[in-house]
């Protein structure tokens, strides 16, 4: 073999703590290496050109690049060597940046380590074989999970692009958090007025199929060909018949059901439509509050429904769909207010979450848009907002900034004044994060035009005093304690991953971070991709973000799906398992272990049983390889020989005797 080694400086990123020239010099001595050089930026245009030229001039048939992580540039360099006529699998990368130069302090030790990593890449490369991808047909339908503003945007863009789009939403209406907001920053325009038309478009688009009150039960398959099972939860109303007239809710005698849409401010009926602009506008029964289910009586709704839509016998139903790509847009949820005992969360009725406050401000909310203290219905004359509640707080294991609360707090302070002009507003804050277009100006307006008193300092406690709430905080700019009397305290509760996110991630085989937010493939360059091909992210499920960012990400995910579907066929990854029929004894242990059902039993010509890998299904995990005691099934590109070559070198390198 004729191997070329390129050791990248990455400016000073690598060269600062690794002697790249020395690594190249050492590599020059490695077996079958005919060329080893260091290069300032391997991925740059001249860097890539140099690789291509070297392949052509030196007749290289294998290339090692020692640079950053392969998770960053493996695909780049595979394309590079391919352009020079090499098979893209005749290429290996040694990660001497993330795993060496950025984590080791000692230049000598780093240089040793980098040299070793280059060596094992060479050792592996010597066993590499050219692999060719097979192509397969793509199912050009897309699944969008979660129909908040991000999911709606992604679905509309996909559908407008001509794709069949399936939308699965867990609650009985689309819209997500945005549908609950009163007005939105920084324009202070009515939230539902902007979102409503999009919700209607979603419902009416002939390319979109909406499953509300539904969740993902299971997802199998791979990019281009996923099979999804959707659990449609029983609503006890036949939605094919229901016209959304609302008669049933008017007559329902059970009026104490928890009102989830209104964030538990106020109560609703056991059968209800969450809000006037709900999409789909269909009634559903909350069995835990319905007298029929609790006491086996009533049935009023069934009697009044003009179209006989009530069906107490309805059961959950699982439907199956096939799609080629998935957009996850499941958003976020606020932390449980009861975790904030020092603020009386869950104990004092006049301490509410920011989202509850949105509902209290909303004209379609439980108070009809009149600000009232939940305890006794009086109009508040002093509202205190507390920022960073459960955010940037290591004592709660939540170091993150929730990103949008600074902005919505300013918005809520402004709206408070427009509801009750003589109401005092105070905001306790630590820092103000307002980096968007027009955002800082908005904060200034809250302070200057709307006379909101911003106090820099955290709040230590909220306690009842003379029938009101005393809020005790610090004013760190003055170096004093500050106590403010409030009628209503609004907590800017931190954003966490949507309930059930971890379960969903496991079904989709994507990763999540310490807070349950889904992990993007690369923090800068692949913000909407995940590490599972064909699964994309949009909106706050990836981390807290405001509406403009969520919408942009929804469109970006749709763009990614359309780019994926722009080809008629996709190439499968040839790094799959392969059975050596001569060695295979037909024990089928591999078939039983494969997590993807990628192995089938076949009859050999002599009638004996053999295992066979279905290449389009195999995901290349290599679990089967380990199972097979006869070494008959091997994972291409990660064969035993290749991995052992790496192990052997690392061991051999210090088994050999020193010369004297």
């Amino acid at each position, binding site marked *: 073999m004729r191997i070329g080694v390129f050791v990248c400086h990455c400016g000073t990123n690598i060269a600062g703590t690794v002697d790249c020239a020395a690594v190249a010099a050492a590599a020059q*001595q490695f077996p079958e290496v005919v060329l080893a050089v260091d290069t300032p930026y391997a991925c740059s245009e001249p860097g890539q050109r140099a690789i291509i030229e070297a392949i052509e001039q030196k007749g290289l048939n294998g290339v090692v690049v020692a640079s950053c992580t392969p*998770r960053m540039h493996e695909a780049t360099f595979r394309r590079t060597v391919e352009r020079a006529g090499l098979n893209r699998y005749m290429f290996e990368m040694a990660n001497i940046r*993330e795993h060496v130069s950025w*984590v080791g302090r000692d230049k*000598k030790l780093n240089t040793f380590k980098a040299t070793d990593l280059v060596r094992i890449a060479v050792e592996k490369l010597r066993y590499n074989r050219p692999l060719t991808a097979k192509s397969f047909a793509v199912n050009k339908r897309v699944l969008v999970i979660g129909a908040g503003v991000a999911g709606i945007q992604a679905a509309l863009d996909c559908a407008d692009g001509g794709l069949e789009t399936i939308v699965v939403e867990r609650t009985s209406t689309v819209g997500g958090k945005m549908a609950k907001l009163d007005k939105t920053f920084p324009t202070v325009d009515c939230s539902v007025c902007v979102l409503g038309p999009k919700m209607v478009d979603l419902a009416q688009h002939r390319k979109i199929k909406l499953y509300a009150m539904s969740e993902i039960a299971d997802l199998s398959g791979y990019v281009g060909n996923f099979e999804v099972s959707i659990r449609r939860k029983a609503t006890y109303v036949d939605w094919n018949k229901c016209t959304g007239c609302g008669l049933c809710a008017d007559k329902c005698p059970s009026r104490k059901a928890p009102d989830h849409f209104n964030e538990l401010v106020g109560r609703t009926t056991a059968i209800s439509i969450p809000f006037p602009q709900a999409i789909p506008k269909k009634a559903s029964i909350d069995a835990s509050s319905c007298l029929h289910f609790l006491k086996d009586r009533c049935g009023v709704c069934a009697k009044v429904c003009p179209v006989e839509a009530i069906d107490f016998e309805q059961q959950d139903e699982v439907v199956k769909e096939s799609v080629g790509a998935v957009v996850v847009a499941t958003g976020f949820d606020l932390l449980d207010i009861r975790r904030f005992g020092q603020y009386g969360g869950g104990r004092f009725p006049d301490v509410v979450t920011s989202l509850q406050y949105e509902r209290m401000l909303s004209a379609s909310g439980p108070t009809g848009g009149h600000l009232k203290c939940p305890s006794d219905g009086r109009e508040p004359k002093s509202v205190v907002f507390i920022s960073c509640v459960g955010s940037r707080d290591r004592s709660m294991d939540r170091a993150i900034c929730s990103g949008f609360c600074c902005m919505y707090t300013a918005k809520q302070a402004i709206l408070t004044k427009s509801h009750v002009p003589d109401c005092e507003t105070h905001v306790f804050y630590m820092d103000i994060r307002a980096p968007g277009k027009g955002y800082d100006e908005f904060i200034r307006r809250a302070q200057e035009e709307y006379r909101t008193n911003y106090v820099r300092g955290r709040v230590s406690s909220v306690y009842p005093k003379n029938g009101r709430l005393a809020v005790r905080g610090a004013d760190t700019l003055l170096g004093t304690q500050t106590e403010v009397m409030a009628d209503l305290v609004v907590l800017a509760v931190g954003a966490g991953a949507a309930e059930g996110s971890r379960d969903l991630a496991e079904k989709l*085989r994507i990763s999540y971070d*310490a807070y349950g937010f889904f992990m993007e493939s690369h923090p800068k360059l692949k913000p909407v991709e995940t590490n599972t091909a064909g699964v994309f992210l949009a909106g706050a499920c990836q981390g807290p973000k405001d509406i403009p960012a969520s919408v942009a990400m929804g469109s970006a995910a749709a763009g990614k799906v359309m780019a994926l579907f722009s080809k008629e066929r996709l190439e499968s990854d040839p790094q799959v398992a392969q059975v050596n029929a001569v060695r295979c004894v037909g024990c089928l242990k591999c078939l039983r272990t494969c997590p993807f059902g990628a192995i089938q039993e076949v009859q050999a010509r002599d009638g004996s049983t053999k295992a066979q890998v279905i290449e389009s299904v195999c995901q290349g995990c290599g679990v089967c390889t380990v199972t097979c005691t006869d070494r008959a099934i091997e994972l291409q590109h990660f064969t*035993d020989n290749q991995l052992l070559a790496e*192990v052997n070198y690392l061991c051999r390198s210090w088994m050999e005797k020193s010369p004297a």
Partner: protein
Amino acid sequence: MSVVDGKEPSVKELRIIGFLCNWCSYGGADTAGVSRFSQPTDLRIIRVPCSGRVTPLFVVKALMSGADGVLVSGCHPRDCHYSEGNLYARRRLEVLKRFLPTLGIEPERFEYIWVSASEGERWQTSVTAFTERIHALGPSPAVKVNRYDARLVAGGL
């Protein structure tokens, strides 16, 4: 002669091999790098698609041939990119761990951990702790040679 300036490195390294799954732990080690979480340099990482790809034989082979320690790191139990590859890995490697003493290998020289792609800090602490543990055990009794010189020879220097 050393690759840098003719002198031996200031710290004596031991030889530790890490098998890291591509999706979680390799990414976690990347995250640690991106965050500049400094670590001891002893460990050399071999990338595998899944911790379920790690044949116990690799581990045994490495330890018998003189590796001072072997660390396998995969995705968290319910977060495997390949749904359950890491569960197979765990089962096999558990058995392996119990089996090591019969081969005359101290079981402490082998460890199996979980690190996800976001857990750069966890990777840093895991590597540091494991390296410290191996240093406490000292060089593997499987080989008794001057390690540095030997490596330089092997490296062709």
